[in-house]
């Protein structure tokens, strides 16, 4: 019967020793949480150049709480493909997750991550808008 059996209470049970951090990684019980503020990643996606592809990519980012800081898009070669490059602030669990989600979109052909310096080159022209 509910409430009257001698089932061990929540605090009387054996407890595991460990702990995970917010990313779901096992960690020492007293380890400080990783500082996740201010991380940036540069991602460049080759996509099929068709209506709605930018909406699909940016919609995915919006749904998954990924802020796009900068974005540049341009057609490649004969115009059948485009390259979209972003600087994003990925929340946990991080940039790998963003890449894998992007790769699942049908019009996305490939995704590459660049180092942060690439972001400066990427936006060099944009920084001087009046030129």
């Amino acid at each position: 019967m509910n409430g009257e059996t001698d089932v061990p209470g929540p605090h009387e049970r054996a407890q595991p020793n460990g702990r995970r951090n917010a990313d779901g990684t096992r960690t020492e019980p007293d380890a400080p949480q990783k500082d996740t503020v201010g991380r940036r990643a540069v991602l460049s996606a080759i996509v099929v150049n068709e209506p709605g592809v930018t909406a699909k990519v940016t919609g995915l980012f919006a749904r998954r709480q990924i802020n796009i800081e900068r974005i540049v898009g341009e057609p490649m070669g004969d115009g059948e493909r485009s390259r979209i490059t972003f600087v994003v602030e990925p929340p946990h669990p991080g940039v790998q997750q963003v890449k894998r989600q992007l790769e699942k979109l049908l019009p996305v052909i490939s995704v590459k991550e660049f180092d942060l310096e690439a972001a400066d080159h990427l936006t060099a022209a944009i920084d001087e808008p009046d030129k």
Partner: protein
Amino acid sequence: MSKRTTATEETADESPRRPVTTGADAAIAALEAAGVEHAFGLQGGAIMPVYDSLYHSDIQHVTMCHEQGAAHAADAYGIVSGEPGVCLATSGPGATNLVTGLADADMDSDPMVALTGQVSTDFLGRDAFQETDTTGVTMPVTKTNYVSTDPDTTGHTVGEAFALAEEGRPGPTLVDLPKNVTKGETGEQPVGPELPEDFDVPNAADGAAVSEAAEALADAEQPAILSGGGVIKAEAWDELRRFATEYGVPVVTTMPGIGSFPEDHDLAMEVAGMHGTGYANMTLQHCDVMLAVGTRFDDRLTGGVETFAPDAEIIHIDIDPAEISKIIHADYPLVGDAGTVLDQLYDAMTRAPDAGEWREQCREWRKEYPLEYSVSEDDPVKPQFLVEAMDELTPDDTVVTTGVGQHQMWAMQYWTYRHPRTWVSSHGLGTMGYGLPAAIGARFAADDDQSVVCFDGDGSFLMTLQELAVAVREELDITVVVLNNAAVGMVRQWQDAFFDGRRMASEYPWVPGFDVIAEGFGARGFRIETYEEVDETLREAYEYDGPSVVDAHVDPEEDVYPIVPSGGDNTKFAMNEAQLEEL
């Protein structure tokens, strides 16, 4: 000429398939080429050309009362058959009414194809009558979607949508069909479902990674398997069972994983998570190596991530690379088909883990934390009692569908599931009203000699009960048991537990008589108010050859236990109200 929606005598066998002449013909021919036998939907202006092509097809169309019902029926059809369920709707409200069903299928990775009518391409983007940006609206809730703009490619697009719905990690796809495209001329005969070029689905996992995982598992002292819905999607239940029994590893399932391992097996710990069994949660929480297969570590399963199985190394098998380390870090990620990778792992094991003591511990937990409730002849009937009575009455392969809420949890806990594809529920989205339309879809997909039972709550049933008209019209043998507690009980339970008992908008001062409503629809209606009535009434309802509804008035104060409060530590489940107060 009205066409019977129910296929009766042999129909157009003597007439050869008509050649494709329009985009609509191509869409229907693509479904036929994919082997589609049933479709669920509703008529409407922009989809009329497609229905006109359906007139000549052998596909059996089931006219539903509401597009949401069509989507849930198709979803359940996909779950039970393993093949994509098909639904159709017109533009505008028809398409938006599908959204809940699409989102439900998307969350649970159920294979499904939706075809929607659309205004002619000349009118697109000009706010025409019944125009909605359907692909825009459904983008976040479909695996992929399309607007077909050329009748010559319509058949190919529908075939691709079908192929994608079932390939890899399944999910819902949608093709929006503008009216001038479906009316437009074409002679392109579709060949059958084809995946897009370069679409790559992983099958076997990397051999070295498999060896490392096998070594970790062989070294484990407290191993556990977490079997998710992906095991059923991949039809990997035999591989899973072979692995678990050969190496002596206790098996916990997720809710969508119900049926992937028989719950009456000695190694079965049943479902873990918020309302899972105490022994399932203790097993997962204390394991040192977890073999997680086809699961996305939903928060209703893990509770707080920080406290979830914190001593366990995780081996994660999934066909979707994006699920690896999304919520719980995978120490051994194995991307591939569940059955293939389980076989790889089986072969790579050099020995069974030395886990005799651990298995004994798991059995102890099963004794220590049993599922239980109290029965007193003078009190209102306990809902759990009805679930157990119905389980006893019906064969082992009976398909159970549910709505969402307390009744769903009791149906999950107190029914013993022994076979895959016998549990049909709304997990990720938690869609109240899922149960009845799902029972209709399941009825068409299940074997003729299989029974279909729907457990629903009064709140949940009230959301989609109009679909009873379909069950009656189509002469479907389904039994609906409404665990009627005159409340949205799960909300009421949470208000009592976490909002100081302020029962705002959760109790119904008056609930319609569901037995009377059922009779009005042309179904059989029954009522249960006392324990003496349970056995005979359930039997009569179950044995009735057609749709029946049992309005079972149950104890309105009964709560679902065990419970882990949202985001809590799964070791600290409450078995009863007194334990909840300790948290």
